[in-house]
């Protein structure tokens, strides 16, 4: 329950109100994380929030967190400068099941800031490409300005062994890419859904519709994995805030297999 003191090593803007902070710690052996896990970051005197790790699992010394400033703590976090101290607890949670995707085709469906907890998956798959079958990233976001990790995406796009499709809800005059909901990209992705594993992350509304589109395309409920989000205070299954039905999102998630949360999804205000 007690944070370690770490420092901001880099700070870079990604999109309006979204920054990526890289942290350096004095005990890098404690920083290793699995894709999909999160840390609790403290701004001393302000508070603590859960933030997914968005960096490369093979390079935990550049412990990256992509943060959108929405409340007092996240706003204070993105205001920290290189060298500033902050508190770190973690990593916590059950991450993306990379083993389940081994040997299968992997469809990654990301919405908005949901690409951040999925970026570690992309790093890992690209680094261990032979372990996986086809790799497709379908990324939907509000507008071209909101596209995250642009240079990385361009780098991945230039590879022949993965497909990336980006779509926006609201185009800008210079945008020549897809315009429309990300669910349409799922329907249009013509490959063998019966040997596909899907990782989905984004606003809950988007995930609901993305899962429906995946199921319509023939992906089994047990092959779809989502990252859920709830109010968290302790991150260790102690404070009770993050409960989703019987599950503690901090400890039993945040990544869940769809068939395990399917019934909970349908209940309003659960």
């Amino acid at each position, binding site marked *: 329950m007690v944070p370690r003191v770490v420092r901001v090593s880099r700070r870079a803007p990604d999109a309006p*109100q979204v920054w990526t902070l890289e942290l350096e710690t004095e005990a890098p052996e404690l920083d290793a994380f699995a894709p999909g896990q999160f840390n609790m970051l403290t701004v001393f005197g302000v508070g603590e929030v859960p933030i997914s790790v968005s960096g490369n699992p093979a390079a935990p010394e550049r412990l990256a967190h992509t943060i*959108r400033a*929405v409340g007092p703590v996240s706003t204070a976090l993105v205001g920290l400068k290189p060298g500033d101290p902050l508190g770190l607890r973690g990593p916590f949670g059950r991450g993306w099941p990379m083993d389940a995707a081994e040997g299968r085709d992997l469809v990654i469906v990301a*919405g*908005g*800031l949901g690409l951040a907890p999925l970026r570690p998956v992309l790093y890992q798959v690209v680094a261990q490409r032979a372990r996986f079958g086809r790799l497709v990233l379908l990324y*939907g*976001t*509000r507008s071209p300005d*909101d596209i995250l990790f642009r240079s990385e995406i361009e780098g991945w796009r230039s590879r022949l062994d993965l497909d990336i499709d980006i*779509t926006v*809800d*609201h*185009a800008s*005059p210079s*945008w*020549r*890419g*897809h*315009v*429309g*909901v990300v*669910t*349409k990209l799922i329907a*249009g992705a013509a490959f063998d859904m019966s040997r596909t594993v899907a990782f989905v992350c*984004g*606003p809950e*509304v*988007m995930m609901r*519709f993305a899962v429906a589109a995946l199921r319509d395309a023939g992906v089994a409920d047990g092959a779809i994995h989502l990252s859920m989000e709830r109010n968290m205070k302790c991150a260790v299954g102690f404070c009770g805030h993050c409960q989703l039905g019987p599950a503690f999102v901090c400890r039993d998630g945040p990544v869940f297999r769809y068939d395990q949360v399917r019934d909970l999804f349908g209940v309003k205000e659960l």
Partner: protein
Amino acid sequence: MGIQGLERIVMEHPFFAGLDEGLRALVSGCASNARFEPDQYLLREGEPADQFYLLRQGRVALGIRAPARGELVFQTVAEGDVVGVSWLIPPYRWASDARALDVVHAIAIDAACLRRKCEEDHDFGYAMMQCFLPTLIQRLHAARLQILDVYGTPA
């Protein structure tokens, strides 16, 4: 390209998959080939909805022009999709622009011809509606999600 070539293209197009052969032959009677260069317009807002298109290759941006804001694209469509649905209902006028983003190959269908055939043969008409309704409903669902701004920063 001969009539048989056109018929084959219509029969192979995913939009009419499931339609029986005779009905597809009826469609071919209203069809012709079309090709557009990048940035050429397939349709323009306000013009009579005479001809609509089934895309075979290339992407098209559907949008609306606004003063001082240029063209606002609300959707892009690609091979397998239909461009132009306003021909289905009076006043048979296009409600938005459609601009080719790449080199576009499409099947052009004479809307008045198709409407007349639907009137003459109601079984054919019903089959046409069954082809077009799914596209309309899906676009309605998608438009709703886009309007809701699910990725937006809440106020």
